[in-house]
Every structure is written in C-alpha cells, then in structure tokens.
C-alpha cells in the first residue's frame, strides 16, 4: 500500500474498492496531512473532522453491505468556501458572510457526495473570488507550498494548495477569469475550467454569473476527467446549464499525432517573463515532437480582454453582491438606525477593500450616463473576442499558450497595485469571456535548482469540446514528466 500522498484520486478510489484501505483510514490520512501543513500554508479555513470521518465510515459500511462504489468512493475532497453544503460555514472568506450556513447543498457538491467523495473542509480564497493571490481573504493569506513567501495564485488559493501539498488528491475551485487555471499553474497541478454551462452553478456563490464555472483541481488529468464526469451534466436548477451529457471520463487517451495546435503570438508578448516563455515554448515543441502540427493563429483582441473582463465581471458582481444587506444572513451593523443606513453600515463593515473597489467599478459602469460607454461597449467587445476564437477554431483543434505571464510572484508584490494584479489574469480571461473549456497542465519549472517554481501550459478548446481539451492535456502529461510532488518543507527542491 502506497502512501496517501503518493496516490491520485483514481488510484485511491480503486485501492479502497479493492479493500487495500478503508475510506475512514483515507479520510484520517487527509486530516493528518492537513494537521501537519495547514498552519503553515492555510489552505483550509474550516475542517469538518467529525463529519468527514462519519461520512467515510458510512461509506465503508455501505461497501461492506455490498453497495456498488461510486467513481470517487472514499476520496477526500476540498471545497472552496463559496460552495454550498447544507450546514457547513460558507463564508466566501468575507466578514459579511461570517457564520453563514446555507440551508441547501449545491448540485455539484451533492453529485460529488453521491459519487462517494468525502468533503473534508472549506478552503481559503480571495474574498468573493475577487483576486489572484489570496491576499484579499478576510481570514489570512494562503501560501504556495513551493515557496511559502510566494502566492499560490488565486482566487481558489486554498483548493489549489490543498491538492498541491498532498492534503487531498482533488478539490473544487471556481474559475471566473482564471481563478482555477492560474493557481493550478502556480502550484504545479492540473486545473480545468469547463465550457461555460457544462457544470451547474446552482449552489456556487456568484461573482460574475456569465463567467463563473465550477472547476476541478487535480494532481493528474485522469482525476480531472473523473471529477468532471461526476459533476457535469444538465441541472434543472440552473437555466444556463447546457443540455449536454456529462463529460466522459474515458476521454483523454487521445494522441497528439495529427492534432492541429494553434499558437497565438498575442499570448507571447515582449514583456512575457523570459523563463515562462522558454518553458511554454519547450512544451509546444514537445507537442510537435509527438506529432502535433503547430499552427500560428491570430487572436487580435487579446489586449482588450482585461478591461472587457473587468467591466463585465464587476458589473455582474455589483448586482450579485447587493443581497448582502444584513437582512437575511450575515452579521449586521446598525449604522444610523435607518434601513438604508443599516444597509450601508453592514456593507461597509463586511466587505474588504478589493470587493468594495469592484462593487464601485461595477456600479459605475452600469450607472446612468456611463452604461453604454462602458458596459454596453464591453459586451460588444466580448462578442468580438468570442468570434475570433470561433475563427481560430476553424483552423485548429485547440489553442496552446501560457496559463499565466509569470510563475508565482511574491506575497505583497502586487497587493498595493490593483491594475498590476488585474494584469496577471491576461492569459486566462479570454477563454472565460468566450465561455471556452481550458485546462492548465504542468509544463515545467523556472528558477534556480533549489528554488524552482512550476509553470502551466494552457490548452483551450471550442465550446463543448471538453473531452478533447482534457485528452490533449492528458496526452501532453503522458508525453512529458513535469508532474512532481512539491517539497514537504517550504522553499526546498522537489
């Protein structure tokens, strides 16, 4: 029996089903690693020790009674703190939802549970998923296991770190403009954002509704496929959920030979970090060596994706976050004693700076007199961005590019400069705006031998081509050897 941290979810589930370990032992393993590492890394904001162990025991009993196991039987899983599980604290790392326990469970969480997964706790994040570094959490900073002075990326920081540091083999994050792909790249794991609508959003606390997608983190692409098989598919509780069958877990055994891979020069700008560029170019070269045809494609509106994204996402967010008014949930501040004064005082005390900044921006771009110039225009540019991907996909099967312009940056480096922080999403927001499936898969390391940091390759596909994108990522993963467990001690070599 291999060590818990060595196995991916697929292997763990199989070994439990074979009787080599129990679900309870496996959950106890997860809790042990969390105990060992969470103080340092702060991946989890809350851990449901008793609940997880009870659930695992029940799984063992049902298995003993002859019940057929689910595809994630006994696998510990981490949930981002913006995902609803009845009775769990879902704070979105915000003071305004401190103590909030939803009276219902998200569709995708229920599907994980029905598949035998064991939620062990809620992970840290940038408040309301607004941020790229974890520095906007109201509860503290999550640290990158490769170098604890650096960010793990964000906003799904805790889920990425929980997987990268061996606490759990799989976790869910939410990706609005790159919040799963970017931390996956910075933590050296797989992060997969599905086609918009492939996974129900019912029970995911909204940030930018037309962009948000529940997205898995995994240490292998086969695990990402397996999670997708479980959580994707139609849901009558989400009108934007597409009527397509669940992603087939068997997908992802495809070969690179004959595949047409588009490489857009716009994703390799002059100011791209030289090491990242070298790393990604080498990855693309590796694809060519395995028989892929590398084709240049043009995505000329890439440079306006960031403002487009921030206008659309903040506009939606300003409205989505209007419900936090101190009436139905969350702590209330009384203010001047009037109703509207209570609203303002509650929101002032409850929201952090970045959330306020984005609510302001979103309110502004929707307000009378500015609406058409900002919001209206952004929707049109968004259409141009989606259309130019359509054109590219007439020439190629997938697009390959870096996931993020740099490897993990130092905590504090960009926190004082919102614009610099926004630019770290440059390479992930276009696929979000166009609603496309995109996978970040580890493609190498940068930095000195004793201080290496992982880099991610992003594979983007056409709408609903989730199987193809995962297959390409899996073929790339099989053809290369970039998957390594991060060091047990901070800053050391892998």
């Amino acid at each position, binding site marked *: 029996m291999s060590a818990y941290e060595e196995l991916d979810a697929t292997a763990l589930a199989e070994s439990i089903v074979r009787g080599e370990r129990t679900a309870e032992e496996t959950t106890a393993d997860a809790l042990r690693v969390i105990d060992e590492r969470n103080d340092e890394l702060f991946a989890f904001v809350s851990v449901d020790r008793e609940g997880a162990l009870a659930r695992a025991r029940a799984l063992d009993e049902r298995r003993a009674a002859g019940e057929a196991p689910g595809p994630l039987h006994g696998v510990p899983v981490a949930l981002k703190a913006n995902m609803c599980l009845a009775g769990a604290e879902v704070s979105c790392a915000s003071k305004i939802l401190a103590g909030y326990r939803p009276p219902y469970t998200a569709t995708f969480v229920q599907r994980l549970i029905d598949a035998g997964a064991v939620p062990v706790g809620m992970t840290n994040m940038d408040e309301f998923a607004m941020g790229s570094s974890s520095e906007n959490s109201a509860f503290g900073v999550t640290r990158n296991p490769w170098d604890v002075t650096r960010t793990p990326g964000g906003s799904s920081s805790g889920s990425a770190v929980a997987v990268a540091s061996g606490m759990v083999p799989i976790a869910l994050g939410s990706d609005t403009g790159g919040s799963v792909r970017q931390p996956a790249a910075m933590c050296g794991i797989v992060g997969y954002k599905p086609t918009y609508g492939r996974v129900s959003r019912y029970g995911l606390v909204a940030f930018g509704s037309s962009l948000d997608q529940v997205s898995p983190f995994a240490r292998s692409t086969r695990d990402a496929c397996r999670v997708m098989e479980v959580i994707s598919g139609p849901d009558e509780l989400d009108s934007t959920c597409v009527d397509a069958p669940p992603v087939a877990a068997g997908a992802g055994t495809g070969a690179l030979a004959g595949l047409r891979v588009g490489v857009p020069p716009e994703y390799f700008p002059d100011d791209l970090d030289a090491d990242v560029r070298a790393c990604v170019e080498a990855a693309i070269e590796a694809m060519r060596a395995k028989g892929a045809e590398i084709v240049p494609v043009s995505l000329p509106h890439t440079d306006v994706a960031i403002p487009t994204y921030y206008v659309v996402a903040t506009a939606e967010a*300003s409205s989505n976050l209007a419900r936090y008014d101190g009436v139905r949930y969350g702590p209330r501040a009384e203010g001047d004693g009037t*109703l509207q004064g209570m609203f*303002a005082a509650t929101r002032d005390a409850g929201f952090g700076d970045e959330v306020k900044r984005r609510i*302001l921006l979103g309110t*502004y771009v929707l*307000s009378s007199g500015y609406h058409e110039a900002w919001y209206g*225009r952004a929707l049109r540019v968004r259409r141009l961005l989606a259309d130019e991907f359509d054109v590219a996909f007439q020439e190629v099967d997938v697009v390959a590019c870096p996931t993020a312009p740099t490897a993990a940056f130092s905590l504090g480096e960009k926190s004082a400069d919102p*614009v610099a922080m926004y630019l770290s999403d440059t390479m992930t927001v276009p696929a979000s705006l166009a609603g496309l499936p995109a996978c970040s898969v580890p493609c190498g390391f940068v930095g000195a031998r004793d201080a290496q940091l992982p880099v991610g390759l992003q594979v983007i596909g056409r709408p609903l081509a989730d199987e193809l994108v995962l297959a390409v990522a899996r073929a790339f993963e099989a053809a290369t050897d970039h998957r390594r467990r991060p060091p047990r001690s901070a800053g050391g070599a892998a």
Partner: protein
Amino acid sequence: MDSPELEIVKRTAALARLEITDAEARTLAPQFARILAQFQVLTSVDVEGVEPMTGATRLADVTRADEPRASLPRAATLANAPDERDGFYGVPKTIGGGS
C-alpha cells in the same frame, strides 16, 4: 470643491450602499481614475454593428413545469437571520419606499 473622480466615487458609493469615509474616498478616487484610464483602450475598439454578448451560452427558452417543490421549513429559512422576530425578518423601522 471635490475633483470629478472624488464626486463619482462618492455618488457611486451611495448608489451601491457602500458607506465610505472621506478618507477612503480620497484613496479610492485616484485608484478609480487609474483603472478607468487603463480601461480607456476599450474605446479604441471598433464595435460598429457588433451585437452585445449578454451571456456565455446560446441557450434560449429554458423553462420548468409549473410544479411545486417543497419550500424550506421556516426555521431553516430564518436560521441565519441577524434579527428574527415572530417568524419575520426584523429590520429598522421604515415607512414605504421600495421601487
């Protein structure tokens, strides 16, 4: 006299029910100005004749049957309420003034 940015920040904050202090407004105003300046690039894009993209799906006509689903028990609905009174949500006294 406040700068135009400061004016905008204050007015927008009021609209968004964000109670910000003068000091906060003074910090936010230049940030706001910088973000908007950075975003000015949007105005250079030719969007003549381009349809707005209002959602990321091309779905239409998604409906459900008019069949009841169980409502929540009242205790569950009100469990998170900061001021629950006799089965209601309590809020500061106010008179009319919704939409």
